[in-house]
C-alpha cells in the first residue's frame, strides 16, 4: 500500500495544497572513465541525461554531484563548471551521481493548472453525453484518482496502481478539508492551505490507510 502524494486544486485551477508522501528516491552513482558513455545535455539550471541509459541511470535523470561535490545546475558548489570538468580528460576517473529530477513547488503548481484543461477537454471530447471529467488516470507506474466536489474543488491522490478504494479515501480527505480548512476562521477561500490541524490529520489518515488498508477508515 503506497500513496505517493495528495494534491488539492481550487475551482479556479490553482494548487492550494500538496503533500508528498513516500516518494521513492531514485539515485545512482557510478565511476566513469574517459570518454563518458552517456550523452548529457547542459542547461544553465540542470545537466540531464539525453542518451545512453545504463545501470540505473535513465534518460531524463539529472546530475546531482561530481566526485561527491554537489552540483547546482551546471555549476558545482565550489564554483567550477560541470561541463569543463566532464569534458577534460585529465579529470577522469570521475564519480557522477544522477537522480530522477524532483518536482519543485513551481512545477507542481504548473502541473496542477495543466490538469485543469485536461479535465475539461476529457468531458468535451466524450462520446457519451453528460460525461464528467477525468476520474482515474493510469500510467504504468502510478494511478491518479481525482474527485471533484460540487463546488469545483478537486482532490487528487497519486497512488500505486494496485491500490483499491481510493474514492473512499478521497471522500475522507474532503471531510478533513471541510472540518479543518473551511471551519478555520483564518483561512480565506482559494488560497493555499496552511492549517496545521489539517496537515496532522491528513498525515494520520494516510498512515492509517497504508498500515491497515482502506477498510480501516
Amino acid at each position, binding site marked *: 500500500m503506497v500513496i505517493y502524494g495528495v494534491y488539492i486544486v481550487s475551482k479556479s485551477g490553482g494548487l492550494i495544497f500538496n503533500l508528498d508522501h513516500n516518494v521513492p528516491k531514485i539515485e545512482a552513482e557510478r565511476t566513469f572513465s574517459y570518454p563518458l558513455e552517456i550523452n548529457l545535455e547542459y542547461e544553465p539550471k540542470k545537466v540531464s541525461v539525453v542518451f545512453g541509459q545504463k545501470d540505473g541511470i*535513465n534518460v531524463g535523470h539529472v546530475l546531482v554531484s561530481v566526485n561527491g561535490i554537489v552540483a547546482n545546475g551546471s555549476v558545482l558548489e565550489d564554483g567550477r563548471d560541470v561541463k569543463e570538468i566532464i569534458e577534460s580528460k585529465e579529470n577522469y576517473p570521475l564519480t557522477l551521481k544522477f537522480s530522477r529530477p524532483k518536482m519543485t513547488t513551481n512545477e507542481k503548481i504548473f502541473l496542477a493548472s495543466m*490538469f485543469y484543461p485536461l479535465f475539461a*477537454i*476529457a468531458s*468535451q*471530447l466524450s*462520446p457519451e453525453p453528460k460525461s464528467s471529467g477525468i476520474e482515474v488516470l493510469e*500510467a504504468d*507506474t502510478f494511478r*491518479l484518482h481525482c474527485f471533484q466536489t460540487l463546488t469545483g474543488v478537486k482532490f487528487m491522490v497519486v497512488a500505486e496502481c494496485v491500490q483499491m478504494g481510493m474514492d473512499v479515501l478521497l471522500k475522507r480527505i474532503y471531510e478533513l478539508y471541510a472540518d479543518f480548512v473551511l471551519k478555520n476562521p483564518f483561512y480565506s477561500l482559494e488560497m493555499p492551505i496552511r492549517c496545521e490541524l489539517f496537515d496532522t490529520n491528513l498525515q494520520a489518515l494516510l498512515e492509517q490507510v497504508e498500515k491497515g488498508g482502506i477498510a480501516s477508515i
Partner: protein
Amino acid sequence: MIYNLYIFDKYGTLLYYGEWNRLKQSGITKDEEAKLMYGMLFSLKSFVNKISPIDPKEGFLYYKTNKYALHFVEVSSGLKFVLNTDTTATGIKEFLLQLYSKIWVEYVVRNPLWTIGTPVTSELFKTKLDEFVKQSALFGPKVI
C-alpha cells in the same frame, strides 16, 4: 462498447478516424476535434512523465470518466492509437496492438498506394477494420 477510434502519426496528423456507437458529437469539426484530441494526449503524456514518482516506461495508459474510458497505445515509431470505450472494458491494450499488427500493418503499411503521413482512404482497410472491431468481444452494448 466501442465508441470511436483515432489514429495519429508522430507529427499529430489524424491518419484515420472510425466511429461506431458514438452518442454525442463534440460540436466542432472533425479537423478541430482531432487537433484538440492530439493536444490533450500530448499534454497528458508530459503530465504523466512529470508527475510519475518513478521512471515511467510506457507512461500514459488510459483515463476514465464516469461515462467512458480513453485508452492510449503508442508504438515505437510514434504511431498513436486512441480508443474510446465504456468504463468496464478490459484488455484494450492487447486489442489495439492486435489491430496494429493485423490490420494497420497488413492493409496500410503494405499498401503501396498509401503515402506515409497522409490520411488513410483505403476502402479495404476500412472494411477490415470494421470487421475486426465488430468481431471483438468488446463491441456491442454495454454489459451492466
